C-alpha cells in the first residue's frame, strides 16, 4: 500500500536528481524516464549518481517532443515497468523533472490511503474547457496532426487549414468520449493496469497517435472507461499562461506555495534555491490532513493572464500601446467635460468642486496655457501647464491626466476657443461625460468690450467651430455620454442642467443643492445678440433667448432650486 512516482525528465537533470533522492529517501519507488535527447554521457552520470538507491529504476528511453505521442509512449513504458517492478503499489503519481514536492510524502500517502479507489486526473470534455491553444479544441480530436508544430509550423498550419476547409472528422474509436486535462495525474494501480492491458489498446493508440497533444487526452479519456471513481483535478499544482506555457515558480512564491496545501507544484525555476531548500529539507505544514487549496495562486496567475491580454484600462505606456478601439477603456476613469457653463456662471469650477467634491479645472485646452485647478503650473504626474507641450499630443495629455488622478474625479471646462484636436478622442470615449450649453461662447465676447466688428467676426468663427463639435457629438459613433442644452434653455431654468450635471458627475448626489453658482450679469446681452443679427450674422446655436431681462428670471429659478 504505497505510492510510486514516474518522473519524466530532461536536461537540466540536477534538480530532478535532488527531487528523486527526496522521494526515494521517503521510501517511494521511482521510475525515471530520461529523454533520449539527453547525451549518453550525461545520462550515465545521472544514473550512477542515483545507483545507491535501490528503489529508483530507469525505464527504456524515448525521444520526446512536445505535442506528440512520444510523451504518451514514454509514460506508458515507464508505467508498465513500474507496475511490474513494484507489485505492491496502490497509486502511481506522474511527475516531471521540474516538479517540487510541497508536502511530506507521508501526508500524500495518508491522503491517498483515504482515497484508495480514487483516480486523481483532470478530465473534462472539450466543450467545457476554454484553455486550449491556437483555437484547437474539438479539432484536436477530429483532425490528424502528422507535422511537428515545433519544427514544421508552416506545414502544421496549412494541414490544419486544409482539414478545416474540408470539414474533416476522424472516426473516434467506439466507446470513447474524448476528454482533456492536465498531463500530471495520480492513478490507481487498477485503473492503470486496465488502461495498459486493454484488449483494444492498439486501436486506441492508433487513434491517439494522430491527436494533437495526446499527453493531455490519452489517459484523460481512457480513465473514463476504466476508473471506479474519478476526482477530476490534478494533485500537481500547475498553471498555464495565455499561450499555454506553464507558469514558473520562483523564490518569492514560497509563502504562497506553503499556503496552497498542494502536494506537488510545477514548474519550478531550476535556480530557485530557496524553494528547493525549504521544501526538500524542512517541510512543515500546520495541518497534515489539509486539502489542496491553490486559490490564491490561481488568482495571481489569472491576474497575470488578464494583464497580458486585456491590460489596465486607460494606460498607454512602453509595452501597452493599443490600436484605436482596442484599448479596453480609452481612459482610466470617468471624467466631465463642461462646455459653456464657465461662460454663463461665475467661478463655475470652484462651485462644481465644492458641490460634488471633484477636481474641477478651468479650460485645460485653452490656447494660452493649461488652466489647472488652483492655477497650478504643473499637475499630477508632472504634467506641464505649458500649452505647447500639451498641444504636442493633446490625447496623451488627457489620458495621462486621467491616469495620474485615478481615484479623484476630474472635470474641466471646454469651449470653441480651445484646442479642437481632442474632440475625436473624447467623443469616442465612454468615460467622457460631455455637457454642453450651446451658444454660451457669446457671453465672454459680449463682456469683453472689444470693438463690435472684431467681436462679430470672432462670433461667427466660434459658432462655426461649435456647430462642428455638435455635429460630432450627435454622430452615431459617439460613445461619450452627451447632454446638450441651448443657452436659452439654460437661462429659462439653470437649476435643471446644473442639477443634472452635478448628479451625473457626483454620483449619489441628490437635490436640493446647498448652493448655486452666480450667473454672470447678462443685462444688455439681448441687445448684443440683436446687433449680431443686424450685422447679418445668425446666432442659431443659442436657442430663442427671451427678449428682456433674462437674468432676472434666471436668478429667480436659481433661488427656487436652492430652497
Amino acid at each position, binding site marked *: 500500500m504505497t505510492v510510486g512516482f514516474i518522473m519524466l525528465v530532461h536536461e537540466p537533470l540536477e534538480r530532478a536528481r535532488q527531487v528523486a533522492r527526496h522521494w526515494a529517501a521517503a521510501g517511494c519507488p521511482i521510475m525515471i524516464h530520461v529523454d533520449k535527447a539527453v547525451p549518453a554521457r550525461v545520462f550515465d552520470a545521472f544514473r550512477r549518481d542515483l545507483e545507491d538507491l535501490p528503489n529508483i529504476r530507469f525505464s527504456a528511453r524515448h525521444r520526446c517532443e512536445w505535442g506528440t505521442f512520444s510523451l504518451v509512449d514514454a509514460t506508458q513504458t515507464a508505467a508498465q515497468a513500474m507496475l511490474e517492478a513494484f507489485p505492491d503499489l496502490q497509486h502511481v503519481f506522474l511527475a516531471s523533472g521540474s516538479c517540487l514536492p510541497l508536502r511530506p510524502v507521508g501526508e500524500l500517502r495518508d491522503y491517498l490511503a483515504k482515497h484508495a479507489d480514487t483516480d486523481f486526473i483532470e478530465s473534462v470534455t472539450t466543450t467545457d474547457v476554454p484553455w486550449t491553444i491556437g483555437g484547437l479544441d474539438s479539432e484536436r480530436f477530429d483532425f490528424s496532426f502528422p507535422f511537428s508544430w515545433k519544427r514544421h509550423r508552416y506545414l502544421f498550419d496549412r494541414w490544419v487549414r486544409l482539414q478545416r476547409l474540408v470539414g474533416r472528422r476522424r472516426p473516434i474509436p467506439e466507446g470513447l468520449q474524448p476528454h482533456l486535462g492536465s498531463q500530471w495525474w495520480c492513478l490507481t494501480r487498477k485503473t492503470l493496469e486496465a488502461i495498459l492491458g486493454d484488449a483494444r489498446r492498439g486501436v486506441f493508440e492508433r487513434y491517439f497517435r494522430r491527436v494533437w497533444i495526446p499527453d493531455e487526452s490519452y489517459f484523460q479519456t481512457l480513465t473514463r472507461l476504466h476508473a471506479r471513481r474519478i476526482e477530476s483535478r490534478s494533485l500537481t499544482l500547475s498553471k498555464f499562461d495565455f499561450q499555454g506555457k506553464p507558469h514558473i515558480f520562483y523564490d518569492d512564491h514560497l509563502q504562497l506555495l506553503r499556503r496552497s496545501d498542494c502536494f506537488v507544484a510545477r514548474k519550478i525555476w531550476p535556480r530557485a534555491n530557496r524553494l528547493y531548500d525549504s521544501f526538500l529539507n524542512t517541510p512543515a505544514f500546520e495541518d497534515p490532513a489539509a486539502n489542496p487549496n491553490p486559490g490564491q495562486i490561481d488568482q495571481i496567475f489569472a491576474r497575470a493572464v488578464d494583464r497580458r491580454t486585456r491590460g489596465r484600462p486607460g494606460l498607454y505606456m512602453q509595452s*501597452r500601446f493599443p490600436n484605436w478601439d482596442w484599448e479596453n477603456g480609452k481612459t482610466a476613469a470617468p471624467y466631465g467635460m463642461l462646455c459653456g457653463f464657465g461662460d454663463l456662471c461665475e467661478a463655475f469650477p470652484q462651485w462644481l468642486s465644492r458641490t460634488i467634491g471633484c477636481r474641477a479645472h478651468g479650460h485645460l485646452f485653452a490656447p494660452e496655457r493649461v488652466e489647472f485647478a488652483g492655477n497650478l503650473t504643473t499637475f499630477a504626474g508632472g504634467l506641464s501647464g505649458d500649452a505647447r507641450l500639451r498641444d504636442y499630443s493633446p490625447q496623451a495629455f488627457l489620458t495621462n491626466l486621467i491616469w495620474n488622478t485615478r481615484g479623484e474625479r476630474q472635470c474641466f471646462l471646454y469651449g470653441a476657443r480651445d484646442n479642437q484636436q481632442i474632440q475625436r478622442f473624447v467623443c469616442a470615449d465612454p468615460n467622457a461625460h460631455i455637457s454642453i450649453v450651446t451658444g454660451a461662447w457669446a457671453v465672454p465676447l459680449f463682456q469683453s468690450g472689444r470693438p463690435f466688428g472684431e467681436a462679430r467676426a470672432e462670433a461667427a468663427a466660434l459658432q462655426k467651430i461649435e456647430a462642428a463639435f455638435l455635429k460630432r457629438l450627435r454622430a452615431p459613433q459617439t460613445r461619450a455620454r452627451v447632454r446638450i442644452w441651448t443657452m436659452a434653455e439654460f437661462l429659462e431654468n439653470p437649476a435643471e442642467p446644473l442639477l443634472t450635471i452635478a448628479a451625473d458627475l457626483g454620483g449619489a448626489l441628490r437635490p436640493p443643492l446647498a448652493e448655486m453658482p452666480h450667473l454672470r450679469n447678462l443685462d444688455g446681452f439681448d441687445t448684443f445678440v440683436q446687433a449680431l443679427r443686424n450685422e447679418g450674422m445668425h446666432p442659431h446655436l443659442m436657442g430663442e433667448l427671451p427678449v428682456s431681462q433674462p437674468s432676472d428670471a434666471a436668478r429667480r429659478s436659481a433661488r427656487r432650486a436652492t430652497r
Partner: protein
Amino acid sequence: MGALGAYGLRLQRKRYRYRALKRRRQLTTVADRTGALRPDDIVLVTTLRNEKVRLPYFLRYYRQLGIGQFLVVDNGSTDGSREYLADQPDVSLWSTEASYKRSRYGMDWMNALLSRYCQRRWALTVDVDEFFIYPFCDTRSLGALTDWLSASSIRSFGALIVDMYPRGPVDAEAYRAGQNPFEIAAWFDSGNYTISRNPKFGNLWIQGGPRARVFFAEEPALAPALNKIPLVRWERRFAYVSSTHNILPRGLNRVYDEWGGEKASGCLLHAKFLDTFAEKSAEEMVRKQHYAASREYRAYERAAGGNPQLWCEWSEKYVNWQQMETLGLMSKGNWA
C-alpha cells in the same frame, strides 16, 4: 511595409554591420577576458568616457543583478577609468581615441562587440548612468528574467528611461564614488510621457519626463527619446540603429502590445542629473560629440546655465519596482 521598404531596411542593417566590422579595428584590446565566458552568462555592453566616479557602484549594481561579464569600450578617458576597469576580474576592456560621433555615438563599437562576443547570448546594452530595473528584480535575478523570456520565445525586452533628479538644484549634493546615485537623485516624473509609433522601424517613440517639461517646452518634438530596448538575445545579424532606441530586424522593436494587453517591460533609472552633470555638459558643449550637434546640452545650458532645477511638487520619490509598475511606467505582463 512593402517589399521595397523591407529590402531598404535589410540594406541598412547590412550597412550597420559593415560599419561595425570596420570600426572594430579602432578598438585596442586592453584586457580580454571573454575566454572565461560561460554559455549562459549574461553580458553587459557599454561605452564610456571619464566616468570613474560612477564605476564602483555601476559594477556592484550589475554584478548583484547577475551580469556575468562586462564588455567595455573606453573612449579616451583621462581620469583613470581605463586603469580601474582593466583591474576588474569580470571586465573585458577595449580602448579607442577615435571619434564617438563618427562611430554613430558609440553604436558601431557596441554592434561590433555584440556580434563578436554575444552570439545567442542575452546582452544588456546600457550607459554607465543607466540602472536597469525589471519586475521582481528585488527577488529574482536577471537570469530568471532571461530564462523566462527564452522560454516564452521573446527575443527582446524594452525599458523606459526614467530621468531621476534631486530635490533642489542638481549640483547641491556631491556624488561620492561607490554611492547609490538614487540616494541623491531620488525623484522622477510619473505621468507626462507622450508616445507615437515610428512607422519605419516599428518601435514606439516616447518623450516626456523632466527633460521635456523643463528644457523642451518650446520645441517638444526635439525632446530626447526615452524608449530603449537594452536587453536582447543577440544574434550576429542584429544591429542597433540609433542608440538602443531601435534595432534591426524591426520585429525586435515590437516590445509592446497593440491589442490592449501589456507585455512585460522594465525601466532604466537614469542617474544623469547629479553634480557631475554641469561639468559634463560644459565639456560636451566644447567636444560637440553628442547627438544632433549636442542639441540637448545646448538646451541645458540655455535653460539654467547648466544647473537646472528639475524638481516640482508633483515629483514622485522612487521606492521600488512595484511602485513603477503601479504607476504604469513598466509592467509585469504575464510574468507572475
